[in-house]
């Protein structure tokens, strides 16, 4: 009997795997994009992050008696910009509504948001799939709203502190259709959106500071089944990794429940990163009735065609367009184009380096994706902080292209540029790294090398071809790597035959 055990175990595992495959996850994301306006959405107070508590909260943000909201036009422009970038409909008339609930960091006892009539409706975003190909993800809506403040539960000896600096910060809540079918797809969508909002310069994308955060709606259903399963909502996921892990945990949890004959409870859940699990926050029965109604302090937001056209004129080249252009204009591979357009700064860097490289497009792509990103990553720097500018890198690549230096020497030069020793030409000059292309000089070195190694010459001529590399190495060593490798090869061949 014992002998059978391992077999039955693996059979069961297989069976579990098969039934898991029977379930299809259905995921929709609500992403809160903090808009990069200088002042708040309904007041003139600053939105800068990190000020001492409650120093950036004016009478309006504090919800003092008698104060009134006034809409920040810059926030509206950013919302419209986003809508145009995802090919959505910009509502000619949208309405701000009050979402009523009590919480100490919600000063007015209601949040001003948009409910029935949002400013952006019906857009889409294309994501690349890991298994190849791409998929369009629907964007149901995007609406403007104000952020709440923060409750601080530590350092107050059993009491809570409230910081209202964040209260009134403008948010664009982007709601996707339930078009995502795996945690990976959800992350791909979230990353794509993250790239887009930074391209549009409407959000700094800083996830640690909460400028870009996500709620995930997750359900599962039998494959082939049309109607959706009961969903849960996982709140406040502020990193790509947490989104993936929380969704995967939740999918497994729901399948376990359904496999066990139970049913999923519609509820809001919190993801605990330390334990890598989600746990209930409040159920549908406890769900708050927000008593939405149009905010009588704000008129409906009416957007004229002229306004929308003016915003359209400010749209930059979008990531997808840029990627396509990189493929046909520079002849890059889809993968290279994808990496190099991941951020607007990186794409701009590549284009500037390519210009300075004097047409060495492939080499530039190779250097940016390899040595540059590697060095930045190692140093924990953003592209904007790179000690090697695009012009400097392009200048270096130009010198590889015109045979002034070899690719190997170039790595030395790059290192020196990184250390702040100046541009490539200066370093090449100062260190005497210029490649030797004088045939007579190379020949002279070859003669010396061959003379110093008569035994190896003998062996080579006797048919030991592998020794050719040895001679190249000796010549390069003798020239400190400066000899033109192609010339060395050709001349050696001639001398050894």
């Amino acid at each position, binding site marked *: 009997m014992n002998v059978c055990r391992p077999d039955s175990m693996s059979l069961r595992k297989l069976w579990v795997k098969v039934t898991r495959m029977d379930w299809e996850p259905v995921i929709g994301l609500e992403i809160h994009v903090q808009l990069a306006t200088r002042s708040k959405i309904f007041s003139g107070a600053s939105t800068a992050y990190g000020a001492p508590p409650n120093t950036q909260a004016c*009478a309006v943000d*504090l*919800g*003092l*008696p*008698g*104060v*009134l*909201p*006034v*809409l920040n036009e810059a926030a509206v422009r950013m919302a419209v910009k986003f809508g145009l970038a995802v090919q959505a409909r910009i509502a000619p008339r949208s309405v701000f509504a*009050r979402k*009523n609930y*009590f919480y*100490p960091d919600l*000063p*007015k*006892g*209601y949040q001003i948001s948009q409910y029935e009539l949002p400013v952006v409706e019906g857009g889409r975003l294309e994501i690349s799939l890991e298994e190849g190909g791409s998929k369009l993800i629907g964007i149901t809506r995007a609406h403007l709203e104000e952020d709440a403040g923060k409750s601080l539960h530590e350092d107050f000896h059993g009491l809570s502190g*409230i910081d209202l600096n964040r209260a009134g910060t403008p948010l664009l809540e982007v709601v996707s259709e339930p078009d995502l079918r795996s945690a990976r797809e959800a992350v791909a969508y979230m990353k794509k959106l993250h790239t887009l909002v930074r391209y549009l310069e409407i959000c700094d994308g800083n996830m640690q500071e909460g400028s870009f955060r996500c709620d995930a709606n997750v359900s599962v259903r039998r494959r082939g089944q049309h109607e959706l399963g009961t969903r849960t909502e996982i709140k406040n996921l502020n990193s790509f990794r947490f989104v993936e892990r929380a969704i995967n945990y939740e999918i497994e949890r729901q399948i376990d429940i359904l496999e066990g004959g139970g049913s999923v409870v519609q509820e809001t859940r919190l993801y605990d990163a330390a334990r890598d699990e989600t746990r209930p926050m409040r159920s549908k029965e406890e769900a708050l*009735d927000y*008593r*939405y*109604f149009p905010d*009588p*302090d*704000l*008129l409906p937001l009416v957007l004229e065609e002229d306004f929308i056209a003016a915003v359209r004129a400010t749209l930059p080249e979008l990531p997808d367009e840029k990627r396509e252009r990189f493929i046909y204009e520079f002849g890059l591979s889809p993968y290279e184009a994808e990496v190099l357009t991941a951020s607007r700064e990186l794409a701009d860097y590549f284009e500037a380096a390519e210009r300075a490289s004097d047409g060495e497009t492939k080499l530039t792509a190779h250097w940016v994706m390899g040595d540059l990103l590697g060095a930045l990553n190692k140093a924990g720097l953003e592209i904007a902080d790179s000690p090697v500018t695009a012009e400097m890198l392009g200048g270096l690549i130009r010198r590889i292209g015109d045979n002034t230096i070899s690719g190997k020497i170039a790595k030395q030069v790059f290192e020196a540029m990184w250390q702040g020793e100046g541009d490539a030409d200066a370093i090449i000059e100062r260190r005497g790294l210029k490649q030797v292309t004088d045939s007579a000089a190379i020949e002279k070195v070859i003669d010396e090398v061959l003379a110093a190694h008569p035994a190896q010459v003998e062996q080579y001529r006797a048919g030991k071809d592998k020794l050719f590399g040895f001679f190249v190495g000796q010549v390069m060593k003798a020239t400190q790597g400066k000899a033109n490798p192609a010339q060395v090869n050709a001349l050696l061949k001639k001398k050894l035959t």
Partner: protein
Amino acid sequence: MTDLHRASLTQLSAALAAGECSSVELTRLFLGRIQRLDDRLNSFISVCAEQALDEAHAADRRRAAGEAGPLTGIPLAHKDIFCTDGVRTSCGSRMLDNFVAPYDATVVSRLKAAGAVMLGKTNMDEFAMGSSNETSYYGAVRNPWDPARVPGGSSGGSAAAVAARLVPAATGTDTGGSIRQPAALCGLTGLKPTYGRVSRYGMIAFASSLDQGGPLCQSAADAALLLQAMAGFDERDSTSIDHPVPDYSAMLDAPLSGLKIGLPREYFGAGLDPAVGERVDQAVRVYETLGARVREISLPNTTLAVPTYYVVAPAECSSNLSRYDGVRFGYRCEDPEDLMDLYKRSRGEGFGAEVKRRIMVGTYVLSAGYYDAYYLKAQKLRQLISDDFRRAFETVDLIAGPTSPSVAFPLGARLEDPIQMYLSDIYTIAANLAGLPALSLPCGFVDGLPVGLQLIGDYFTEDRLLNAAHRYQQETDWHERVPPGFDESSQAVGEGD
């Protein structure tokens, strides 16, 4: 000038300009009257004697420097709903008994800039919710014409104080009749401007889509002077309207020949005290002698106004009053056990019965499942009521009728019967729902108690309303009557006490 206390704002402005008196003298005179006489009325919540005298000195200096305007040095009082920098702004509630506003309402700062002197803050129904000034945390206000009767509400303190000549004029606010009904019950001229004419910034919100500030004065000419300073666009109030402010005083004497006045038959039916109706009829006859053409009209949806109002106003107030939670300012209960306890007891102890009733009604009508049946339905009815007026103004210039169905009623008479109390505003509420300007002026007495005539105009016809009221006041002297017991010269009263 021994009778300065009886003088109108217009007369005082002239006396100051002619150097017949100083602002300091006037300020002392009225502060003295408040001190001696207000025990009988309870019309002030706060008196700012020291600050007022400082302002009066400043006004006199300004006049000496040749920089005085028509209101420079004129003593005024503000309803305690307007935020005043450094002075308690209670809104008639225990909730804000300890609240000292850190800023001035726009109305306050405009009148301050015009050089007016603020004597103090007047009593009012709690959060402006009431028609008798009996819901104030600071106690009921008495009607100077009969101290056993109510002055009307919610601007009852302002009305009683002006009627008793404790102050030449005062500000008020009108959500469903809160300027006009107390004006009628106290024998004053009170104007509710077009919604959006006067900034609501710093005016503590009751029902945001209905609230409007305006003057409570002895005459239309005084109201014109005061409104001139109060009206105008304010970028801090998104619902204020950028519409030119005409010279209201310049329009006062325009002839009324050919003026078309409509009498809505629905305003003269059951529920109207016949004696009140008779005074109104007499006033209409005066207009006929002035050349106006009078005809009967119909406002068929009149009966819907009160029920519509008691859905819309509570809905908005339930949300507007959420900010009074004991967290940041205002009343906080002793030793809260936890957050829920803090909320429940702070609000339970801080608000009075009428406010709580309206918060509960408002919360109910906005709740999931009831929103369509109540709130949405009420919005539709509101449109029908506005349409009634739009049609009426196609054929008439002004609408005339009673302001209130009865004269001032005894204190306590309607306290236990909210419906009866709400019906006090049956003729005034429709103008708020439609956003139209409306004015009440005294048109006689019944049993020694004043009767008010209401004039309703089309949008932004405050000039026309004031003109019509002024011409009537040139033919009559109801507005010059002073309640017995408050009519003696200040010296005689002083000796009598």
